[in-house]
Structures are given as C-alpha cells and as structure tokens.
C-alpha cells in the first residue's frame, strides 16, 4: 500500500508523519443550517437497481461489525466472527465485512475465529467509552490490544479536556497513542454527540488528524446522538482540507445509529459527492454497526427476488 497511484494510507506513514497542533485558523466555521440542508439534499438521491446492489455490497465490505457490551463473551464473539466472514452462507457472492470490533479482552477470541479470513480485528481501547483515565493506563490498554492481535485501535478522545480548552492535551494523547499503536491503524473517536457544535466537530477532527489519526470516527455508540449524516459531512470536509494541505488520505467512520440499508447508501452518497472515488473503499471508509448487516442482506435479497424475506430468515448473532 502507499503506492504512487493508490491512496497513501496515513497510518503507514509512521509517527514521523505527525505535526504540531494546527492553529485555530486551520479550522473554519461550519454553518449549521447549510450543512444540514446539504445532507438533506443528498438524502434525496435515488439509488436504484445496479447502483443499489453495488452500493449495498460495498457497504458490507466497509462494515466494522461491532459488539461492545459488558456481557460480551467468547461465544458471542465467535458467533459474530462467523457472521463477519460469511454474512450469508447460502450466498457465497456476499463478501466478508471489513472488521470485527470488540473489547481488548475478546481480541484473542476474535483472532482465532478470524484466522485466514482477511477480516481485520478492531479493538476499542483507551478507557473506552469515557477516556477519563490516566494516559499510562490508556497506553497500556492500547499496547495490550495490539499484543493480543488487534489490527486497528479505536480510541476515544478526552472530551472533558477538549471542551475545557486543553486542545494540546488531546493532541498529545492522540500522538502518544498513535505511537503505541505501532503498525496498528488508529481510529480516533471524537464522540460528536458530546461536542455540542459542528464547529467543535470540525476542530476536533483537525486536532485528531494533525496528531496522527488514520481514521476519524464519530461516536462510541454509547451516547446519543451518535453518527449523523451532517456530522459525517463536517468530518469529511475536514478530511478533504487535510488532504489538500498534506496529501494524506484520512479515513472516516460513522458509528452508532446506522441500522438501515437506506441510511448506509445515504452515507455512501455523501462520501461520493464530497471526496470522490478514492474514498469509496474499505481502506478509507467504514461503518461502525451492529445491526446494519441484516438489513443490507435483506435488501439484497429483495433486489434479486423482488420480495422481502421475513426477518427470521437472517441469523441474529
């Protein structure tokens, strides 16, 4: 990866790609009404037939199938991994998802279950979901998850620090965690539902990217609202600006609240018309979701047969 033609994956640039906290002027204001209107307009794109099928298959390849519950167990994770590898065993043309996302303790289980599948293992770390622990503990959390076999780390930023103006602290933590990740990809969760404004979402995106994020991600899924199309567009615009300034391709992951195939297609439309073809790949766009997959499968069957199957025809994992 990182060839002359293809996208340069920022994470593979290594920690030397890191810069300093960007000046405030690097983060322009965001107009609330206009951004919501724009995603509203994109929601009315009509995605039919071949476009729908291609979009749904792409959405599966971009999915981080997630379970982040206190009651997660090896059995639950193994079941999820089965689904991740073969979303529909009766239809081999359905691709595997991009990754399975679990807590660090369950990474070894997932690793075993996904052996040889090409499905990545993502692990939340850094005192997920609040991020309110000492940095040393967060770093240890990350190192363990990587040791256990995580390919991707989903960290949370310290929203308390960000909202109290300590951007430098947020920046330094991300940078330190990026270093602790080693070869693992770093996704930085902004928890946009706690940031209070689109201006803050934009600013946090810039801080995260300049600190070394490979992906920026909306939410933990534990706070409402989680991902929204408008927040995603704000973050995609930050990614676009960062690309023009640095040449680096940063990925985007909306997570939480994306349950319907139609929503997934809406997100893909936003990506297509904001960043273009280069980002329409699992390397640069992911969905964090736990229940989206079955609706996508149901829509794919509907496209083929013209009829909706009962929900019971799809395994719940």
């Amino acid at each position, binding site marked *: 990866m990182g060839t002359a033609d293809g996208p340069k994956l920022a994470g593979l640039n290594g920690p030397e790609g890191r810069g300093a906290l960007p000046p405030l002027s690097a983060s322009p204001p965001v107009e609330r009404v206009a951004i919501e209107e724009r995603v509203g307009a994109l929601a009315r794109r009509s995605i039919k037939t071949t476009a729908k099928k291609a979009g749904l298959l792409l959405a599966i390849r971009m999915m981080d199938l997630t379970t982040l519950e206190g009651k997660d167990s090896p059995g639950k994770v193994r079941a999820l991994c089965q689904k991740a590898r073969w979303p529909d065993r009766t239809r081999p043309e359905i691709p595997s998802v991009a990754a399975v996302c679990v807590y660090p303790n369950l990474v070894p289980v997932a690793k075993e279950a996904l052996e040889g599948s090409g499905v990545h293992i993502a692990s939340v770390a850094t005192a997920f979901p609040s991020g309110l622990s000492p940095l040393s503990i967060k770093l240890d959390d990350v190192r363990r998850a990587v040791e256990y076999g995580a390919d991707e780390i989903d960290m949370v930023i310290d929203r308390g620090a960000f909202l109290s103006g300590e951007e430098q602290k947020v920046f330094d933590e991300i940078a330190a965690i990026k270093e602790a990740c080693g070869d693992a990809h770093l996704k930085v969760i902004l928890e946009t539902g706690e940031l209070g404004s689109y201006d803050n979402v934009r600013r946090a995106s810039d801080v995260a990217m300049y600190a070394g994020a490979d992906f920026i991600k909306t939410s933990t899924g534990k706070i409402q609202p989680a991902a929204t199309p408008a927040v995603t567009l704000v973050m995609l615009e930050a990614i676009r600006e960062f690309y023009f300034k*640095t040449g680096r391709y940063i990925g985007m992951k909306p997570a939480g609240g994306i349950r319907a195939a139609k929503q997934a297609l809406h997100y893909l439309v936003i990506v297509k018309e904001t960043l273009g073809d280069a980002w329409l790949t699992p390397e640069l766009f992911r969905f964090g979701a736990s229940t989206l997959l079955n609706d996508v499968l149901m829509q794919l069957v509907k496209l083929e047969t013209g009829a909706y199957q009962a929900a019971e025809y799809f395994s719940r994992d």
Partner: protein
Amino acid sequence: MAIKLVEDGPETQSTHQRRRGERRLDFGTAWEYAPAPERPDHVRLRDRYGLFINGRWVSPESGKFFKTINPATEEPIAEIAEGSEADVERAVAAARQAYESVWSKMRPLERGKYVYRIARAIQERARELAVVESMDGGKPIKESRDFDVPTTAAHFFYNAGWADKLSYAFPGRAVRPLGVAGQIIPWNFPLLMAAWKIAPALACGNTVVLKPAETTPLTALLLAEIIREAELPPGVVNIVTGAGATGAALVNHPDVDKIAFTGSTAVGKLIQRALAGTGKRMTMELGGKAANIVFADAPLDQAVEGIINGIFFNQGHVCCAGSRLLVEEGIHDVLVAKLRDRMATLRVGDPLDKNTDIGAINSREQLERIEQLVQVGEDEGAERYTAPCPLPEKGFFFSPTIFTGVAQSHAIAREEIFGPVLSVLTFRTESEAVERANNTFYGLSAGIWSNKGARLFKLATQLEAGVVWANTYNKFDPSSAFGGYKESGFGREGGRHGLLPYLVVE
C-alpha cells in the same frame, strides 16, 4: 517520508496553488448512480387545450393554436390556444361579472375556503404537477417535486388564511378589493408564479385574468382544471394563453384595475409606458444581477453550496440568481478551486431523472441568448471554466460555467444572462464589496457569507436589494415579502406586504 505540517497557517494563495496543483479529487465512476427516471405514465394531458374563461374551456376566437414542446427532447407535448384581443375581452368581461355579482359579495370566510380547497387539490395532484412542470419547462424533477409544487401549495394555504383577517393585517384601516387583476407570468417557475399572483388576489377578493408564458402554459392549465374541480364560481379565475400580443391586449384592456407582471426588465418598461396615465395599479417583478458576497471568514464549504445553489438552481433561470460572485481577494483561488470540484459533481441531463441537478434550458431562444453572452464574456477576456458534464444529444442544454477574471465593466458582470453562468469578481474591503454589489441598475437580491453577525446586519442595510440572504441563498417562504429595488421592479409579493397590491387601503 516525513511531512512537515508545522508551517500550515491560514491558507494563502501561493501555498494553495502549489499544493492544490498536484492533488485532486476524482469524481469518477467507482460507484455510478443508475438511471432513476420519474415515470410520466400517470400524467393525463389532452392533445389540445382551449382557453379557460368563465369556468369553461372555450376555443380561441381566431381558431389558432401553437405547440408547446419539451425542451429536453424538442418534441411537442400539446397544442395550446392562442388568445387574441377578443378572447381577452371575453375573459375580462367574465372576471368583471364574477367580481360584481359573486366574489366581492361573498363572506371573506367563504372566499378563504375556496382558496384552501385549491391548496389541498394541488397537494393531491402534486406528483402529476411536478412531472408536467419538468416536461414543459425543463427543470429537474427534484426541484419541481421538492420546491415548485410544495411552495405553490404553501402560497395558497398562506393567503387563504388572510382572507377573513384582512382588517387585522392593516389595523385601524378599512380595506377593500380592487376589482379585476390582469396577471402576466414568466416561464421560469410557471406554476409557482401563478400561485404568487392568483392566491393573494383571490384572498383579497379580486378576480383574475392570468396569462402564462407561451413556452410553459401546461401547469397553469392544470391549475385551471383544479380550480374548476374546486367549484370556484365561474369567471373568478380565467386563464388566457398566448404570446406577447395576448399579454399586450390584457395590459391595454380598459376594464382591468391592476396589472401584475413578472418577467424581463425590457418588457416591464414597455408595460409601464403603456399604463402611464391610465390610473391602473401595477406591480413589477423584473430582472436581476445579484451579488453573492463571500468574505474570508465565511464558512467556505457551505458558501460553496450557496454559490452553486445561487447560480445553478433552475438552470440559472432565476431572477434573483446569485450571478455575480464577489469574493474577498485573499480567498479567491481557494474558493474557485472548491467551486470547480463541486461543479464536477453536478449532473446535467434528463429533467425527469430524480438525480438530475441541472435540467434543460427552457427554450432554443434562451439557449442562444446564453451562448451569445458567454461568447461576449470570452471575447472581453474573462477566463471561462465549464464543468466536464456530458450533455444529452437532443434538447437544449448548457453546461454549468463560471468566468473568473471578470471586471465590473464586462457585459457578463452587468447584463442578466438568465442561465447557468457565474461571473466571479473580487473585492478588498467591506466598503468596496458594497460599492460593487450596488453598482448595477438591478436590485432584486443579494447574498452575504461571513461568520460575523454584526457585519451581516450592517451590510444588509447597505445593499440596495429587495431580499438579502445571510449565509444562505434562494430561500423562499409565503410569509416573506419578495420584490425589487431600482430596475428590478416595485411592489412586494408574499407576506402581509404581498396583500397590499390587491387592496384599496383607506
């Protein structure tokens, strides 16, 4: 590969050019939208339409008909009656009779009910109206479906509510209707303009003779069907189709109390000359060359959306289109690069495809006018950029175009093009922005993009424009007055102010 990011301060032109040059976005074919045509099979149009006079469909006295065509295919859709002076005579007489005997005597509450009924019927037939509007006029179905038709219904609803509350609109004053209103509307928003004219006129107690534009008569004729089904008393609304001569007959008819005109400034002036000394009331909503002003502190990505919407909405066939972009010099290159990227995502083509952003130019005549003015722009030395959109082989289409390096003295900075063509100019200071924005004989609308609230309010009072949008563009609401300064016309439509032209206030 160490990347040094530390020096990244505010974007300047030189760093921007250097960086942008090698990096670009590819809006290609990785995931293409399949065709998504809105099917027209549910639409039932007649082959031939007469005139709607005194509640009935009648043949034109001359026996003459003309064809209305679909500008996206150049194929005829229906035959339309050409109204003559004699037909206008019949229509005005019917309107006068209805005014004297029924409409002016009806209780305002009852009058309001009829207007509400029209509004509801428009909603019920929304899909059909949207499809016909796109077929006859060329505008994308997403606009006729999401903007024209819903806003049309909203105008009838809004004005219906005023019918029995007019004395509250102007407290302490006595109000009464004028009589017969002659109304002439343009081809850019055929159904919506009919609503802007008919709804307040009826709510205020007047009767109407409406002449739609000759290239887009169909939705007005469907509205006539709706009015008939709503069982409005015969003669309250009459619709006489035809071209300029029909309009002239209406303007010159001695028994018309008021003329409401929306269209070009040139025709507006002719009408004003014809009406001079007659005592007839008039309102004029004419051309524009609006400035859309973008300051360096603006939310730029959203400003880009506002600029695109401002000039490419309805193929630029909008009198309040933001056709002059005034950009603070320091962000000119960044903004133009963003505009070009955005233009690469515009989809030009079949107006009935739900994903089409820019449809067909309304007529061959208009297409030729756009082409001619664009040629003048090139000849005068402005730099043209046209989006790389494939165009259909048949029909009247024009790719979205922007001109940079435009001076105040260029024709494309002064004349209304009424097409998808934007002229980009720069300014250095706030006062220069205002001066340039006002340096036009038009004064219909303006836009300001800035993150400073105080600046928005200050400039809004300094810009000579009837409507000033701040951090948005092309926003319309029935409760908000719309109208011009200078040669963009006079009189207001919409809101409480929009009632005044249809009332005698004592």
